[in-house]
């Protein structure tokens, strides 16, 4: 995964437009942004902290180093989904993150964020690619 992610970021395939991570290698999770995005979507900080698996005080820190393969395998698709949604909203960050964090009827009441954490990002990604005409 490390190699694939690095190659993808080198080619510009993963832009991380919403800056979920601090680095192009997608290892240092940007916890400050995670918290901000939760607020945009109206998620209480305590709920968001539970969803990303950190304590509420930790969410107020800057970053978390993610090297666990299982976690990265689910967070990287979240970054890709966010990139595609960012294109669909033509660079509107607030609308992008609101879409990513909000329960969606297409995914049977799960948000794209939750689909990614559940390891079911593929159908979300396919949907966004179809909308973009890719």
């Amino acid at each position, binding site marked *: 995964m490390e190699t694939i992610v690095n190659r993808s970021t080198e080619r510009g395939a993963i832009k991380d437009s919403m800056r979920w991570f601090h680095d192009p290698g997608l290892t240092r999770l940007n916890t400050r942004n995670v918290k901000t995005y939760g607020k945009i979507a109206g998620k209480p900080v305590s709920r968001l902290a539970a969803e990303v698996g950190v304590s509420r005080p930790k969410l107020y*820190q800057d970053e978390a180093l993610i090297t*666990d393969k299982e976690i990265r395998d689910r967070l990287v698709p979240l970054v890709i989904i966010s990139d595609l949604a960012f294109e*669909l*909203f033509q660079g509107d960050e607030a609308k992008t993150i609101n879409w990513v964090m909000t329960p969606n009827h*297409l995914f*049977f009441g799960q948000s794209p964020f939750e689909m990614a954490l559940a390891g079911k990002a593929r159908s979300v990604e396919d949907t966004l690619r*179809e909308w973009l*005409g890719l």
Partner: protein
Amino acid sequence: MGRDGRLFIPSDRGGGWLIESVRQLKAEMLRLSAHFRDQDRYRQAAAKYLVTELSHCTFEKAWLINVDRPVYFRRVGQHRDVLDTAGSLSDGGRFNIGGAQASSRATEQLGAFCGKRSALYLGENAAIVRMEYGDFGMPGSTAITHSVSLKRRAKLNLIDIEAALNSLASQIPDLKAMVGNASMNGKWVDIKYPMPCQILGHWLIANAPKKTEGIRFPTTHAAGGWNVCLFFADTRACKQLLKAAASNSSSVAAL
């Protein structure tokens, strides 16, 4: 992450490293994964119950309606054939079981109630199909809304799902709640066991008079609005009955 499975978080005070357990994050991932597994278990129990109950029910002609010279709408990606039913045959849909749900386990457990069908889902107007499609408010979407109408015939023979549900509810009180309001354009490929709405759709069309073409059902996106699910043997049969044209509605383009 360290060998002990812990996550290192740099502190914003003093620059040292704090240590945070990853167990919470993994637990959340497992919770979400379990959510999908629980849904599968629920679906199996619901399907078994519904199949038993429906086997005691009979189709009533009072549920049938004729729609005169209908014009419906369908929104698809720009590279998709608007009248192609192959996707619904593989993925399934709200009232049709697809390959994603028709596993050998489901076929064994549900027997004749688990039959794959291809279908085409249409909306009453362009605004409804855009909301059903899900790209509402996304200016970067290249998807196209098409109008769809009958090629030669004047009338479409449909089952009114509300009439059927109201009637069947006297024998299966939980039916309306079980059928629910699942999305017409949901990502059905993720659903790995037939849902009650799919089993009901299969039962309705299998027991309806031969010339019945589909099911009319209310949209969840606009009060009083309708969608239809039309069943076909394949894409060729669909194109024999229907014709499509790109819709130029300015009100749609503005959505």
